[in-house]
């Protein structure tokens, strides 16, 4: 049981029910009455905690993200793991690899769509994005400092990695027959490995298995 779910308050139960239903039917398919029933509270209490669908989505996503974060902490890289191995684990934690991450993914997509039409949600989407970016950029920076990775702009590489995770993750999530999970994982890992000059795969042994190609920069 995660810490958040263990508190077992009405609010948490409402959020857990909201995550399940949004992931299943989409934010627009969500009925407050069903969430209330699922959470064992009155519809009035749901309305009391969440005045609008936007606030419900934002809080449910934050809750789901915290749960995914708890799962991430449990998945501690083995002692002595290289930065490349840590990044490979992070990639797994950002793709729909488990039922909980799959729910988190659907909510993430719902947030995009909602934020297109409700600009008040954009700062929240940006904050979530910033956390993910910092998570990757910090690991990359540490790997450069340790001499494991070639010099690069960590934020730029993080942006590209997040975009690939989103682009491939969406395809995997919706069951694109050309992009099963393993292909998504391999493609993101290969691109990041090349950016960092560690060969073709993040799990490849030893740094700089082959010379890094020079990144061409448009003038």
């Amino acid at each position, binding site marked *: 049981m995660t810490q958040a779910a263990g508190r077992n308050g009405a609010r948490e139960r409402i959020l857990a029910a909201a995550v399940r239903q949004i992931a*299943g*039917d*989409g934010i*627009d*398919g969500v009925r407050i009455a069903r969430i209330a029933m699922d959470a064992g509270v009155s519809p009035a209490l749901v309305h009391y905690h969440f005045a609008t669908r936007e606030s419900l989505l934002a809080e449910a996503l934050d809750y789901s993200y915290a749960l995914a974060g708890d799962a991430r902490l449990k998945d501690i890289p083995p002692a002595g793991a290289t930065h490349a191995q840590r990044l490979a684990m992070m990639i797994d934690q950002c793709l729909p690899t488990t039922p909980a991450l799959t729910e988190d993914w*659907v909510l993430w*997509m*719902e947030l*995009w*769509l909602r*934020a*297109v*039409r409700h*600009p008040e949600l*954009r700062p929240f*989407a*940006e904050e979530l*994005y910033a956390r993910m970016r910092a998570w990757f950029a910090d690991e990359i920076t540490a790997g450069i400092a340790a001499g494991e990775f070639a010099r690069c702009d960590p934020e*730029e590489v993080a*942006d*590209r990695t*997040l*975009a*690939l*995770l*989103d*682009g*491939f993750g*969406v*395809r995997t*999530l*919706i*069951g*694109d*027959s*050309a*992009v099963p999970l393993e292909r998504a994982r391999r*493609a993101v890992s290969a*691109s990041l490995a*090349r*950016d960092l000059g560690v060969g073709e795969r993040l799990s490849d042994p030893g740094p700089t298995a082959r010379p890094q*190609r020079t*990144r*061409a*920069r*448009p*003038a």
Partner: protein
Amino acid sequence: MSPRPKLGHIRRPQIIEAALATIYERGFSETRIIDIADNAGTSAATILYYFESKEKLLEEALTHSDEQFYAKLREEIETLDRASAQLVHIVERSAAPPDPLDDWTLWIEMWLQVRHRPHLRGTYERLERSGQQLMIAEVIRRGQDDGEFNADVDAEDVATMLSALIDGLGVQVTLQHPDVTAERMVRLCLDAAATELGFVPERRPETRQSASVAPIGAKAAKR
């Protein structure tokens, strides 16, 4: 079965155009058939005569906007000599489409609909394979044949990677992320393409300028 409605001057393309604009503006789940009918100047019955469901209208709207976008793009890249210049142009146009309706809004709608209604997967795959990814793969193969791009890489693989990268960044640009601008999107995509394909992307100054005057701002003003 209702009698065949009087079609008069109303034609399918007008309904599709109206569906595109309405779904883009209001969102798929907030759009009612009657809203599309109002925008198209026809009746809900007429629309349901042509298209059996709202899902079908989303599919047709997205197909229509994709076909138009890629037909125009194809004309444009045919005026460029080299595959590298063609690839640069595809990326620039994707980051800053001339028509704001071609941003990622309808794709996000489609992704979510496919997730919640798996029977739409076939439609999604047809669209996914016929637009961006196909065009990028063609240009890469051409560049490989001409000796401009690294011939050792799999064109389909690189096209899929670039297409996923463009989608991931396109979502952030559509959301007007302050750090992930259209200009940054172009650079991140071209850097990745350059690494994979071993070429130096050359950008024409005039296209760079038009890419920075993104319609994104205009769209924001409209809302």
